[in-house]
């Protein structure tokens, strides 16, 4: 039995022993199960352009939140104005990194004075912190405007999709009309009127701190920009409702609540998030456009658009004051657009096929 005949029909008993752990690990290739979200994140991480844009956005956002807290100057602080003293004109219109004569005297005396990175403006305010604060305002307006659009669009879109019939028809006709209105002209018109009408009614409330112009901007977004979101969500619901897996779930006895939570929402959430992300740069765009026309944030609060608009007056001597907010706006809008595109490529399952 020692020399085995290759033609022997005898089976080797060892072949029938239970497999060892190593053999099992070798035979069964278990991949970690991946969720849709993790899969999308992996694709997003692989997309270098989108990933870098995301880092840029995070860096700008964090800087705009943290820097005003630690910076020695405030955005509305007129450095030359001290209570009980005449206005110190040497603080006005400083060039970047320049010190006023008062500050120079303190430096000579051995004190340390924080530099004005971008100089000061015509009212003697530190320009760097104004740009940082303006970035914060612009980002916040863009973000909240998109959330408002999302909420209004989602509500009306899902009502139209679920109810169908006459309700659907009325909502969609309204959408058609608003869609064909020239949006920018309507925005300007409403912004011009709204700041007159709601300014007085806001006084004394919490909202007064935000300012009538920003509130009216939000109202305008809620009125005009919900259409494409509503259309999108209605379309999603109409097509998802007819899918086989919904029928299968119904056949196995699932309730409406279960179907909505487990099937409909997860399937349209990515599309909704992507279009919300792409709404943010367009909201920032609109805000800066209105601020540039003088219909944006209330002074002395800066936004990137109003900073650029103010800088237009002294453009010949202080052109850097326009270039700086211009670069920041373009950088924000560009990276948000690229990030939104990357998000769409990573999370829209229909594009992956």
């Amino acid at each position, binding site marked *: 039995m020692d020399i085995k005949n290759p033609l022997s029909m005898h089976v080797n008993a060892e072949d029938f022993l239970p497999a060892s752990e190593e053999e099992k690990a070798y035979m069964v290739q278990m991949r970690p199960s991946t969720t849709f979200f993790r899969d999308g994140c992996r694709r997003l991480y692989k997309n270098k352009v989108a990933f870098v844009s995301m880092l840029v956005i995070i860096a700008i956002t964090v800087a705009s939140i943290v820097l005003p807290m630690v910076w020695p100057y405030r955005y509305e602080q007129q450095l030359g104005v001290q209570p009980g003293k005449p206005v110190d004109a040497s603080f006005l219109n400083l060039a970047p990194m320049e010190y006023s004569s008062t500050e120079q005297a303190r430096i000579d005396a051995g004190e340390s004075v924080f530099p004005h990175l971008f100089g000061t403006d015509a009212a003697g305010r530190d320009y760097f912190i104004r740009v940082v604060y303006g970035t914060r305002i612009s980002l916040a307006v863009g973000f909240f405007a998109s959330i408002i659009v999302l909420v209004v669009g989602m509500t009306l879109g899902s009502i139209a999709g679920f109810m169908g019939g006459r309700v659907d028809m009325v909502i969609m006709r309204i959408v058609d009309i608003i869609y064909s209105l020239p949006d920018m002209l309507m925005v300007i018109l409403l912004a011009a009127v709204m700041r007159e009408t709601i300014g007085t009614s806001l006084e004394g409330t919490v909202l007064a701190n935000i300012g009538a112009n920003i509130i009216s901007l939000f109202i305008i977004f809620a009125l005009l920009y919900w259409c494409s979101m509503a259309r999108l969500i209605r379309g999603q619901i109409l097509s998802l409702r007819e899918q086989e897996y919904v029928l299968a779930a119904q056949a196995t006895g699932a309730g409406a609540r279960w179907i909505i939570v487990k099937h409909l929402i997860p399937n349209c959430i990515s599309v909704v998030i992507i279009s919300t992300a792409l709404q943010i740069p367009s909201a920032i765009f609109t805000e800066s456009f209105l601020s540039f026309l003088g219909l944006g944030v209330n002074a002395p609060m800066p936004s990137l*658009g109003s900073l650029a608009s103010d800088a*237009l007056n002294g453009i010949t001597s202080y052109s850097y004051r326009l270039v700086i907010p211009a670069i920041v706006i*373009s950088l924000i809008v560009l990276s948000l657009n690229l990030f939104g595109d990357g998000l769409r490529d990573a999370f829209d399952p229909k594009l992956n096929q």
Partner: protein
Amino acid sequence: MDSKTLRYIAKRIVMAIVTLWAVITVTFFVMKAVPGDPFASEKAVTPAARAALEAKYGLDKPLMEQYKNYLVGALHFDFGPSLKVRGREVTAIILDGMRTSAKLGIIALLIATVTGIVLGSIAALRRNTIFDKFIMVITTAFVSMPSFIMGSLLLILFAIKLKWLPANGAQPGGLILPVITLSLYPMSYITRLTRSSMLDVLGQDYIRTAKAKGVSERNVIMKHALKNSLIPVITYFGPELAYIVTGSLVVEQIFAVPGIGRYFVSSITGRDYPLIMGTTIVLASLIVIMNLVSDIMYKVVDPRINLE
């Protein structure tokens, strides 16, 4: 044209009319909602003088009658007198501003469309070369730049630092910078649109068939590829005009061009309500009509498209 296309066109025209009516109605009632009245700025108006003024402008009538009168007036292109520019009709001011603005807008529109199509086709034909990548990077940057930023930067560079071109739009050669500012964004958009649709068309079977038949490269591109890839560009004409109209509002402000956009902006800051309404309605009609024309053209050029 089959009856289906005609029905689509009819439906689209009705929709455009409804939109125009909505624009007029919204502007009218929004303006009426403004607190205070247009004569509040005039100091110490006696009640008698105020009543006379209101009667002159028809403001003493009930709201619905004012609305009806305004609607009829707007149909006749009559928007009443301006409140701030003494003794001038809104219509005359608009026509005056339109002359400069139309010149600016049409030149920008032509430049943007032609360069966009040319650059886009070259980028598609030379796909993945340095030229293509360069074009894509540049156009991505331009699409992310608001027009007022673009205008201000061009003003700083060419008018203030280099002093090559005048900063004031009313001077000779002064329209060059505003035209460039206005055309860069639509040009970039059309470039990207043409490139992607050209790439799509180049992969079609009929292109391969044409090449296999021995049609020259030149004819394949000009007769088959280019013509078909321009169809999506047609749909962009409406939004393109809308962009140029709104863009000219700030561009005319930056370069001090005496056009309709400047009147619009100054009427907002000066609260000249009839002028705001008039300019809004005129500009909105332009955009709505252009959207209508480009939609109908789209349908007529390519009957396969089902727009329902």
